[in-house]
């Protein structure tokens, strides 16, 4: 009983860690631009495919090889994120939020359909990139890949925190997300900060894509849709705009889903995130760690 619980806990945390990585990108972009970047989930997908194409170039089954693949996927995703921002969102900086949202949905559909043309619609199996071993500790069975996911996610979240709180760019990012107008008056170039935000968030999603593929070893161009939506829910749960909130929300959602998935209600697993979303938005729109806003009239 306890073993089973601990087992699910490990599984839940490693799924949650991936939600957390994606959720960070949503929350950061929402912080600076106040809109839901629907295309973020497809950046995650492109990250996984970048990993797929990079894998043969790196030594298989080694830590170093794995690092190279994840790093390459992060770079590719960051470039894609910056390109999306430049081409699709920047021209709409002054447009109503709804127009930006619709554009984001368009970009998301474009990445999915273009992905189906370029990568093929059929699921592809993902190669082994990290050393893969089945581990067994005290009756708990897990794979080394789950450990890799957790370690990577922890390092990336800590790294992000360092960047946001201990660099000039991080300070600028926080300034823009608190008050873009005032930040501009203080000599901060909002466009640079926004580009940086997209690069950072997209890189995290790209890492998430590869780590997801490592654990669930087939990938396809629509793979981002559900994890992406759920990660957004995680961001809301944690309090949109809050970085620790996104990490917390991701872990929580991963745990809840895994435990429900292991119960007799497993087929309802995909509905949980949305039920939570609706409940939170209605009763605690600021999320667990977010702050409520007052509307000015």
């Amino acid at each position, binding site marked *: 009983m306890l073993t089973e619980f601990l087992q699910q806990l490990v599984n839940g945390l490693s799924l949650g860690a991936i939600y957390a990585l994606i959720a960070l990108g949503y929350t950061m972009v929402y912080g600076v631009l106040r*809109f*839901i970047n629907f295309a973020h989930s497809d950046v995650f997908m492109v990250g996984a495919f970048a990993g797929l194409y990079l894998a043969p170039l790196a030594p298989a089954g080694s830590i170093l090889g794995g690092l190279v693949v994840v790093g390459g996927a992060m770079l590719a995703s960051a470039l894609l994120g910056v390109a999306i921002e430049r081409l*699709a969102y920047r*021209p*709409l900086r002054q*447009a*109503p*939020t*709804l*127009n*930006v*949202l*619709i*554009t984001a*949905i*368009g*970009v*998301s*559909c*474009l990445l*999915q*359909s*273009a992905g*189906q*043309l370029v990568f093929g619609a059929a699921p592809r199996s993902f190669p082994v990139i990290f050393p893969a071993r089945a581990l067994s500790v005290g009756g708990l069975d897990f794979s080394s890949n789950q450990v890799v996911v957790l370690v990577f996610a922890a390092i990336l979240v800590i790294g992000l925190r360092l960047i946001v709180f201990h660099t000039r760019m991080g300070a600028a990012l926080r300034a823009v997300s608190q008050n873009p107008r005032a930040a501009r008056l203080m000599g901060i170039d909002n466009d640079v900060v926004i580009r940086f935000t997209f690069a950072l968030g997209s890189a995290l999603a790209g890492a998430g894509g590869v780590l997801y593929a490592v654990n669930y070893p087939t990938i396809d161009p629509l793979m981002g*849709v559900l994890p992406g*939506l759920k990660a*957004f*829910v995680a961001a*809301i749960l944690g309090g949109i705009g809050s970085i620790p909130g996104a990490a917390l929300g991701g872990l929580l959602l991963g745990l809840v889903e895994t435990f429900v998935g292991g119960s007799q209600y497993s*087929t*309802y697993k*995909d*509905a949980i*995130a*949305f*039920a939570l*979303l*609706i409940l939170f*938005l*209605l009763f605690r*729109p600021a999320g667990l760690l977010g702050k409520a806003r007052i509307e000015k*009239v």
Partner: protein
Amino acid sequence: MPPMPKAHLGFLLALVLGGVLSGLSDRIDPYHLDVLIGVGINIVLAVSLNLIAGHTGQFSLGHAGFMAIGAYATAAVTIFLGPHLIGDTAAPGGLAENTLFGSALLIGGLAAALAGLLVGIPSLRLRGDYLALVTLGFGEIIRVLLQNFEPLGGALGLNGIPAYTTVFWVVAAGAATVFTVGCLVRSNYGLGFLAVRDDEIAASAAGLDPARYKVVAFTVGAFFAGIAGGLFGHFKMTITPSGFDFSRSIEIVVMVILGGLGNTVGVILAAVLLTLLPEFLRPVAEYRLVLYSLLLIGLMLARPQGLFTFRTHRAVPRA
């Protein structure tokens, strides 16, 4: 304001036209008939979403969810109750069958309207992209619930739905949708939908209840989406939960955006265009979705008021 009889006359003319087309349907090429029915169903979907998203400004990504509820409820009535009500010997296309179908559509519409009422309530507290997400979540929840509901076929869906959908029913539903939305929006009462979209605070300062308008828009819009679902099921003769997923909702959203939010005529044109386009694009079918998404992005960048809106007022409200 247009005089009353004109709208009613148009509605009646459409019914007559539907009857005539239905009577001639033996002489129309079956392929053309299918396309015609597809166009009609999409018009119902797009015009009803336009009431919610266009006129009232409540951006909804869950229209396929309402459609699913209508499709399943209507099919449940005709499959499970139909044989008891009209027997197996009813003449195909006869009065008994059409009465059954008409009542089933009504039930499907009402079931969807009830769901619309439920979804409309969150819209009282949310706006813009948060609302869009809740409606999206609602659509996905409907899909998961249907996948788990074995009496209605579960994930495999419902098969063997009788082919009751005729040109007449489609034209009648299209006319009823356009008539209802048109009459609502053009009345003094209905100006409130636009006012609520433009500025909720100013609307309440003018004595309008924004909550009520939003719930009415969601309920009426969902009702017609449910009817469209019923027509769709009895046209394709088989429905699956995954047929009403997020991408189906997006398809309807694209029609509304392309036509111009709040522009009924434009939205009808867009529904026609986007239903016919894939037929012409068959040779390059795999590029269809790429084209759609580029169209959507291009429109937002270059012509956010839609292809068919020529007045210069702000087409999309500030969220």
